[in-house]
């Protein structure tokens, strides 16, 4: 296979804040192939947005430490000067954001904002840029594109606004589109339309896409590959179908159980993942998920799990300290509707409290203080 479009290697991003150093992204690596869609999934605060903004050069600042590499067509974006980086932004790599209303300037007509995006990278006349802007609006499915150039953002509906954002991102035929929670602010029917649009454009224009979302459902249909992030790290990475068919990480299980699905029996509750995302200033020791993991053992608070290939499942990687057979058995039980604690006692033969108790008093206390609100026995 040829060189990937984007290869992120051991990316670390740390912010110096008044409260301490926040390790927002802690050594992640991933690749995006030309024309493919990568989904990055995680809760808010997992570092998924920061990693993309860093690739765009938008997280730079005097309070930010960035290390690692982000090779885009072989060039390391992290080492580019700000002006070179500017020429990449909006040109080779474009980005759209969660809230299209706040992401568009409220005082400028969308035509002007589109023309500005075009002329930032192309030496064309205003008139030519306007024509192109209208084409873009047509491309993203906005009726009467010429006329709507003279509308302000607030005169569009939410879905139409996101289409405008997409049109603006497409202005310079980018090779990579980063969509950061593109549908979160939209209502459900519109979400599907936007995802469909992104999928169609990817095919028509042959660009690669990174979709960042907290909702696995969003990327289920669109993404070729999915990376799950937790607390600044990638905990699982797999082709989309494999991830849904055989998820390996307890956090991914939690995410999957929290998606509404057509096949979820009526009356069965959606189960959110218990506890809150950990502090990134002093993250939990060992496996970062262990304070919230229903299957944690005392050892998991000490040993850092590496991201390793899953046996017999090419392209699937996971960072989990549970043995592969245990994981499979647990997932099977969960899929059949078992509650996590039942699954645990059935398969692992103990309870979380028992497993964590002997060794881990001090560690558990540390974990508690690091992630207040974490409950010992989530239900």
């Amino acid at each position, binding site marked *: 296979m040829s060189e990937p479009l984007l290869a992120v290697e051991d990316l670390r991003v740390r912010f110096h804040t008044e409260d301490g150093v926040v390790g927002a992204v802690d050594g992640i690596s991933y690749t995006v192939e030309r024309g493919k869609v990568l989904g990055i999934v995680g809760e808010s605060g997992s570092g998924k947005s920061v990693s993309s903004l860093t690739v765009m050069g938008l997280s730079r600042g005097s309070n930010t430490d960035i290390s690692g590499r982000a090779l885009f067509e072989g060039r390391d974006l992290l080492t580019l000067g700000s002006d070179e980086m500017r020429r990449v932004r909006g040109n080779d790599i474009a980005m759209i954001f969660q809230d299209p209303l706040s*992401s568009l*300037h409220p*005082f400028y007509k969308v035509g002007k904002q589109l023309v500005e995006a075009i002329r930032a990278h192309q030496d064309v006349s205003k008139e030519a840029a306007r024509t192109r802007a209208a084409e873009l609006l047509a491309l993203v499915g906005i009726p009467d594109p010429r006329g709507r150039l003279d509308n302000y953002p*607030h005169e569009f509906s939410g879905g139409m606004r996101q289409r405008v954002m997409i049109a603006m991102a497409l202005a310079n035929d980018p090779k990579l589109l980063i969509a950061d929670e593109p549908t979160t602010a939209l209502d459900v029917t519109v979400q599907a339309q936007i995802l469909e649009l992104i999928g169609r454009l990817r095919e028509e224009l042959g660009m690669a896409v990174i979709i960042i979302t907290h909702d696995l459902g969003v990327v289920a249909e669109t993404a070729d590959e999915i990376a799950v992030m937790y607390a600044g790290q990638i905990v699982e990475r797999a082709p989309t179908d494999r991830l849904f068919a055989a998820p390996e990480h307890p956090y991914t299980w939690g995410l999957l159980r929290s998606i509404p699905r057509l096949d979820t029996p009526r009356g069965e509750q959606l189960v959110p993942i218990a506890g809150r995302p950990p502090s990134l200033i002093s993250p939990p020791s060992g496996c970062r998920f262990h304070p919230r993991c229903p299957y944690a053992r005392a050892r998991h608070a000490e040993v850092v799990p590496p991201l390793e290939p899953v046996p017999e499942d090419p392209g699937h990687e996971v960072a989990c300290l549970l043995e592969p057979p245990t994981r499979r058995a647990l997932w099977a039980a969960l899929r059949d509707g078992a509650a996590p604690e039942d699954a645990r006692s059935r398969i692992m033969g103990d309870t979380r409290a028992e497993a964590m108790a002997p060794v881990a008093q001090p560690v558990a206390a540390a974990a508690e203080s690091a992630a207040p609100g974490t409950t010992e026995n989530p239900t």
Partner: protein
Amino acid sequence: MLRYIIRRLLWMVVLLFLVSLVTFVIFYLLPSADPAVMRAGRQGSPELIERIRHTLGLDKPWPVQYYEYMKAVVLHFDFGYSYQNNSDVREQITSRLPATISLTLGSVILWLSVGLPIGIISAIRRRSRLDRLAMGGALLAISAPVYWLGLVLLYLFANDIGVIKLFPGAGSYEPLTENPGKWFGSLILPWMALAAAFAAFYARMLRSNLIEAMSEDYIRTARAKGLPEWRVVLGHGVRAAITPIVTVLGLDIGILLGGAILTESVFNVPGVGRLAYDAIQHADLPVIQGTVLFGAFFIIVANLVVDIMYAFLDPRVRYT
């Protein structure tokens, strides 16, 4: 929009009537010297005082006096005569307006051209030494009383009493129409004195607005588009941050056109503010009434202009 403006204009008339009525009542009903006695001067005989009272119409009940006053204002734009200077009030005010307008507009230009760049630089170089210096200076400028600042400027830079004889001093004002060069020279120090606190205030206001604006999502979008940073700041950040400032600016101009009393006094710029001040000192009702009405007029018009401007500046605002 047109309906809105017409409605506002009608309101303006009502408001001006109210303002005039309130001033009139305050100065007629509150204890102060009898204008007729003041006019009669030394030991005026009762007959003389009575005669003056009659001539000035002061022997009529105050509602009648008010009615006659307003009639003259509305029909002839006649604001009566000053008891103190014995001169036409309208003529006094209109002859002083150019000075007040010169003072106001010049200092507006000065404070914007100083305050806004400082605000922008402070916002984008937030917490830098430059920012701290600028904001410290701004605090100083805001705290300095304009009268005191005027004196300091005169003692430092006036060509008559200054340590460094640089600019024309107090009382050197000449109308623009008579001598543009002298007009400009004479207003340099007053402009500086009046603009200082405003420049500081606007710098601080723009700084905080811009810091807020720069954290908005659309700024991230603008950067993601690959716009150069200066265009992100000026075209997107400042554009949003400046809108509330335009509102304040409109009102400030309105208020200053009513007279910048202290600045006009220190530098002896013969403007409306100084006139109002003298009139209050001497309980000169017609002049007080006239200057109050003019001041109220400017403030109300400024309010209207600001509201209309706002609709242009922020397309989300619509009036009906």
